[in-house]
């Protein structure tokens, strides 16, 4: 594929992620932070997020598996996940976390289990999205081009 085409594809793809709510404006902040001194910033941060979230999701699964569910602990994990997902702009994950927390507040185990599934699903989805995004970027870089900056002009 030609460089220009890949670049356009990247732009369109990114925009679609915003439109579908996978990403929000915070992701733009992240992109803006990337510069020459930190050329892989977004990639690094997103990778960190997924590492971290995997651990958190495991903890959540274990916690919900207990005979006596510790809702406080559950809540703190979800809170953390909410914080980090919002920091990278993973909007749908964040929203799923908010719903999760509501169920934690009322100590509804069923609701929590459902939400956990939802959060996992959203994480998985957005992870795939990011992977596609980064792949496109790599292609562009490999072709000697530069990654176009996304401007949200909704």
């Amino acid at each position: 594929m030609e460089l220009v085409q890949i670049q356009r594809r990247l732009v369109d793809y990114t925009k679609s992620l915003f439109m579908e709510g996978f990403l929000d404006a915070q992701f733009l902040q992240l992109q803006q932070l990337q510069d020459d001194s930190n050329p892989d910033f977004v990639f690094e941060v997103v990778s960190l997020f997924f590492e971290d979230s995997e651990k958190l999701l495991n903890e959540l699964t274990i916690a919900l598996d207990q005979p006596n569910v510790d809702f406080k602990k559950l809540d703190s994990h979800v809170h953390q996940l909410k914080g980090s997902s919002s920091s990278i702009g993973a909007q749908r994950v964040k929203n799923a976390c908010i719903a999760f927390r509501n169920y934690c507040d009322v100590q509804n185990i069923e609701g929590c289990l459902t939400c956990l599934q939802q959060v996992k699903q959203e994480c998985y989805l957005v992870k795939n999205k990011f992977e596609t995004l980064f792949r496109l970027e790599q292609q562009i870089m490999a072709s000697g081009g530069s990654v176009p900056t996304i401007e949200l002009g909704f």
Partner: protein
Amino acid sequence: MATMHRVVQSSVSTSDATTTTYDGLTSCKAADIVISDQFPAGLRVLVVDDDITCLKILEQMLHRCRYHVTTCPQAKVALNLLRERKGCFDVILSDVYMPDMDGYKLLEHVGLEMDLPVIMMSADGSTRAVMKGIRHGACDYLIKPIREEELKNIWQHVVRKKWNENKELEHSGSLDDTDQHKQGHDDAEYASSVNDATDTSLKPLKKRSNSKEEDDGEIDNDDPSTSKKPRVVWSVELHQQFVSAVNQLGIDKAVPKRILELMNVPGLTRENVASHLQKFRLYLKRISGVAQQGGIANPLCGPVEANVKIGSLGSFNIQALAASGQIPPQTLAALHAELLGRPAGNLVVAMDQPALLQASPQGPKCIQVDHGVAFVQHSVKSESSSSKHFSQSFAPVEDVASGFRSWPSNNIGTAGPSNSGGLSSQNGNMLIDLLQQQQQLQKPQQRSTVSELRRSINVQPSCHVVPSQSSASFRAGNSPVSVTQNGSYSRTAVIDYSLISSQSNCPSLNIGQVSDVNLQTTGVLSGYIPPASVSPSVSSCSVNADNCASQQVQTSSMTFKASRRLPGFVHSTSNIPDPYGSTKSGDLLNQEPFNNLGYINKGTCLPAKFAVDEFQSHLSSSSHGKVFSENIGTRVKQEPSMEFGDNAKVGIPMLQQFPPNDLMSVFTE
């Protein structure tokens, strides 16, 4: 642009490199000097967050703001880092929910020990959570996800804090200024400090502070030009005279003029007495505030661990008293006197007063009490030998906490890290005063008073402790020593006066910090920044002034001083907040153990620049005797925040009072 950015970064990194050596004053000074030109670039930020994703993002954002960033995923490690590298950070960004330590706890510790502005962050943006942050003294509260723009402004908290501290010093140092002038400042400061406080009562103050802030520049300019008073060293004997004069008059009626007359010391000015009186009252307040929950951090305690045990014992004595909340200033003074009278080191003293001692587990607290204890003891004896005791008793304390040490040493006029000591001694004096007045030197009495204090005082964790009932006997207008249960010395002192329990800032650095912010352990500072001014002791203005003057350095301070023109004010959380932002509602007080009750462990050294400012502000506040008595009296009964404002005057002009340093002069203009 990119080039510029890189250049900036490199310059920042150079300064960063310099600052990161942390070898001593020179390195930091150099860094400060370099940074000042590009302020706020080079601002040294410590970020604490267990979420590494957020940590990384914040780090990058802060780098983009040209700040020097240090990240730390664990709160405990961060606290150690802060303790080790005192004076090497300007502001702290901390997450609220962390696994190893609650963010609020960290906030309290920082406020007590280092008196640095702390900004809280959390994905939880509920009003309740934000309020809690404010109460604990956070300078500001950011809601995640955080944007870069929000971080660009964090330098304002550093400036504001310094400014207010300077104002305090300034006001305390210049009694000659018209009352109106001072009052205005007081109001302004007070208002600024409570800026972020949600208490509606403070709102009117805000307006004043706003207008004041505008005037600050002018006023500040005026002050420095006028008085360059020689520093008075409050020796033990002198202090004894002071205390007995205050006791004679009654803590409530002790006005600088009468005290001066009674003391009959040639060469002593009313201003000197006024500033000393203010410090003493703050000290008494602090003492009483600390007593409440054992958890009161002793600002004087530099090394928390070491002091923990000792401090708790000592602090209890006074704290217990204070905690009871019902201890009138006189009692405190008496207690103080008694404590001082005890021979042998603070530690011993603390332990000797079982009645007063109540378990204050937290380390930092103890020092404070010890301090007070030693002080009290000293005053009680009132013998020629007492001074010896004083020094002796303090000696051990010093070991425990440099801050503590400085306290007594300041009073005695000894060298050493005395800077911080100055303040404490002042407080001790106040305490003695109170105690003497009450003549309740007996333990049983003290015990009861302590318990009374306890009941009446609501201790706010990391905030200024505010007596539960404004009408608490202790508080009630008796003495300025209202028990502010602020962890920080200075702060509490200030706040006590104002009876401000509301805590705001400070991000903490709220109000509480304003006054005695200088309490930081001078030990640490002495080597480092000139003046210990940073630390503690506002009360030991004289001592600090010397230090400050000589040192001045810290370009950063310069920067900050220069920034006084900047809008100032008070951290977003409001001046009061400093860590000790007293909570108005007081609900926090009752619940959490007051770790750092009002005693800011000034051990941490603030960069010299800050030190100077603090010092000055303290001076201004303390010297503002007239206003002080008036305000305190009225304010005490009212909102604490008001008083805080009084004390929290940023005394930028005060800076000028110190021997001008080249750097300083540049900025003071």
